[in-house]
């Protein structure tokens, strides 16, 4: 049979359709390794202005002088930084109009959760930016947002279209020197989301970013910059997934949030990076720097559900600079099998009458280690500042560990700090009670864990809460013999 060029074209088309984005889009991936030329090349690829290239190079030079931190309560083989490809992107931008073209695996995950992402988002009226291997592939609802003056776009585009905003705010909350991974991210980030809410605007819908590591042997370094101008409000959701790979993948993101006077930002994360298999092979190293700065009467609220990653190192923080500013941190961290999580928050009280709340729920199962690490610092001028912290751990089985490392520093007499921590297990009597009512043990555990995590789940936007709840269940599957 004759094989014509027409046939070939058709086949290619079909293939692209048939296999979709995940396997068939040819990626352009840089050779492994990192040096100034690579940094320049990334910048060039993105067609960035000179100042941006310089900024990256400065970050790279700083990074070279820094050492990888090892104070966290996690143990892992250090990533070989010269063995990672620092840029990987779909070769050409695919025409993606609806979410179900995006990634079968992602959708699979959600199907498993009993949620159709597409439906969810459409129903919930959520604007979504999808970042795949650090490159933003689809931003929806751009127009609706544009009418309100809200800018929500990949940061690579924002550098082109709104350089004055990016230049003004990038690196002001997380300076390039902040820490090893932040410096690395500053040098090599390839994309991420940028969001600006103008003065007095209440964002009419949830903004959402989905992060996805797709290619093997790459790191994901995305950068999120969120600016809420005076009196504005936005709720921002972030979801993360990655395919199963035997190797460890590095994810070193930076999120910067600027909350101006009287503004409010809610930032919710459901992190479900691949945690590695039962034996602890593979999985994502999740080393993330997230920080918000609050001006007068501003409020930031971090909510996170951490169920994935082989190793997590993450402390979403609040700098309460303005008087009467408020910081909140609500966290559920679940570790199973060989996962390790060292997560918590920093609440830096600088302004007067500042208030912070920390609710952390750690659930450890299998052979995992789960640590809460937090800092509450009340500075000298932060008169009448308050903090309440509660860290509860639930242990399942006898091979896991739960650790609490709170740092509390107070330099002001009017400070009011309360910290409470408890550790418990699921009681035999609780299980028997549930069993007696006809609920089997697996379900009973899910029920009890859900109850344990309630205070945090309640803080999530509705559709995320449902996802999170199911994720908890899936994460703990098979954790009881």
């Amino acid at each position: 049979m004759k094989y014509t060029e027409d046939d070939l074209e058709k086949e290619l088309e079909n293939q692209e359709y048939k296999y979709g984005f995940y396997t068939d889009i040819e990626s352009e991936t840089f050779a492994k390794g990192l040096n100034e030329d690579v940094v320049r090349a990334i910048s060039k690829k993105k067609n960035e202005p000179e100042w941006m290239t310089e900024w990256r190079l400065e970050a790279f030079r700083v990074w070279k002088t820094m050492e990888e931190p090892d104070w966290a309560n996690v143990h892992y083989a250090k990533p070989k930084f010269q063995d990672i490809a620092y840029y990987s992107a779909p070769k050409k931008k695919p025409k993606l109009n609806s979410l179900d073209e995006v990634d079968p695996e992602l959708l699979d995950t959600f199907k498993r959760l009993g949620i159709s992402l597409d439906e969810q988002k459409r129903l919930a009226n959520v604007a979504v930016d999808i970042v795949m291997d650090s490159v933003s592939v689809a931003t929806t609802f751009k127009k609706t947002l544009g009418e309100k003056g809200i800018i929500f776009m990949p940061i690579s585009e924002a550098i082109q279209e709104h350089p004055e905003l990016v230049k003004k705010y990038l690196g002001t909350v997380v300076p390039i020197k902040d820490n090893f991974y932040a410096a690395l991210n500053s040098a090599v980030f390839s994309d991420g989301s940028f969001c600006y809410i103008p003065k007095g605007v209440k964002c009419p819908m949830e903004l959402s970013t989905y992060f996805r590591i797709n290619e093997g042997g790459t790191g994901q370094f995305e950068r999120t910059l969120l600016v809420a101008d005076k009196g504005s409000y936005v709720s921002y959701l972030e979801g993360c997934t990655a395919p199963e790979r035997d190797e460890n993948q590095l994810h070193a993101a930076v999120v910067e949030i600027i909350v101006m006077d009287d503004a409010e930002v809610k930032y919710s994360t459901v992190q479900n990076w691949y945690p590695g298999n039962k034996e602890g092979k593979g999985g994502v190293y999740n080393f993330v720097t997230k920080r918000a700065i609050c001006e007068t009467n501003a409020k930031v609220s971090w909510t996170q559900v951490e169920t994935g990653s082989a190793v997590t190192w993450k402390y979403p923080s609040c700098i309460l600079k303005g008087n009467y500013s408020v910081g909140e941190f609500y966290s559920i961290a679940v570790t199973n099998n060989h996962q390790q999580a060292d997560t918590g928050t920093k609440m830096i009280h600088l302004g007067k009458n500042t208030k912070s709340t920390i609710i952390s729920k750690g659930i450890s199962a299998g052979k995992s280690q789960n640590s809460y690490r937090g800092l509450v610092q009340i500075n000298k001028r932060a008169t009448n500042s308050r903090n309440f912290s509660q860290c509860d751990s639930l242990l399942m089985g006898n091979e896991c560990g739960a650790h609490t490392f709170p740092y509390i520093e107070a330099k002001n007499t009017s400070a009011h700090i309360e910290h409470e921590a408890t550790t418990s297990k699921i009681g035999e009597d609780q299980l028997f009670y549930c069993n007696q009512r006809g609920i089997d043990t697996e379900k009973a555990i899910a029920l009890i864990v859900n109850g344990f995590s309630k205070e945090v789940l309640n803080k999530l936007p509705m559709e995320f809460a449902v996802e999170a709840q199911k994720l908890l269940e899936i994460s703990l599957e098979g954790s009881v013999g």
Partner: protein
Amino acid sequence: MLHIQNLHASIDDKEILKGIDLNVKAGEVHAIMGPNGAGKSTMANIIAGKEEYEITQGNITLEGEDISELAPEERAHKGVFLSFQYPVEIPGVTVTNFIKTAINETRKAKGLEDMPAKDMLKMIREKAALLEMDRKFLSRSLNQGFSGGEKKRNEIFQMAMLEPKLAILDETDSGLDIDALRIVANGVNKLKSKNNAVIVITHYQRLLDYIKPDFVHVLYDGKIVKSGDASLALELEEKGYDWIKKELA
């Protein structure tokens, strides 16, 4: 309905039940009385399937089927309900969510679909009214911060929702004031039918004024030492358990 034959059970090699025989038919109410430590709660827990007890001899059958090897939830699915003497607290799980899960799990075990939310709501309202329970009460965490009376009322509420074949009320009267006792007993009486059976475990005659037993058994030192009709409970109330002890000695 329930058939217990020569039941011996122990915990940590200590024998607690030393040969119990009990026959409960549908439509009957049996009262088990006896002094502290006689083994009353143990018996209730064993029927419900608590794992730390070991059945060393004898068997338990429910409608002809031996249930002594079944998991607690499987027994529950077959219609065994135990109203606990000390109901546990489950923080963060509301009364509504808990009972919803229990009902749907039981339905699942029977191959039924989840109960439609509308029906569930209707049923919850109905049964809550039966037990004179506040709406707010339903949204509180299960048993957390409940008073003794609230806990017991909640147990009977769950019984009403689950509609068991065999309900075992383990000292449901303890910690109840007179009004709560009346409400609880009233609830139980309303739920009683010719198709189900109730075992009431109690120290005192008090509860039996409201829930009239067909049979009264005295459990002492792991054995049923005396059985009779409702008048036995009155006699016990009057003469005390020493009377039984003397009679046995």
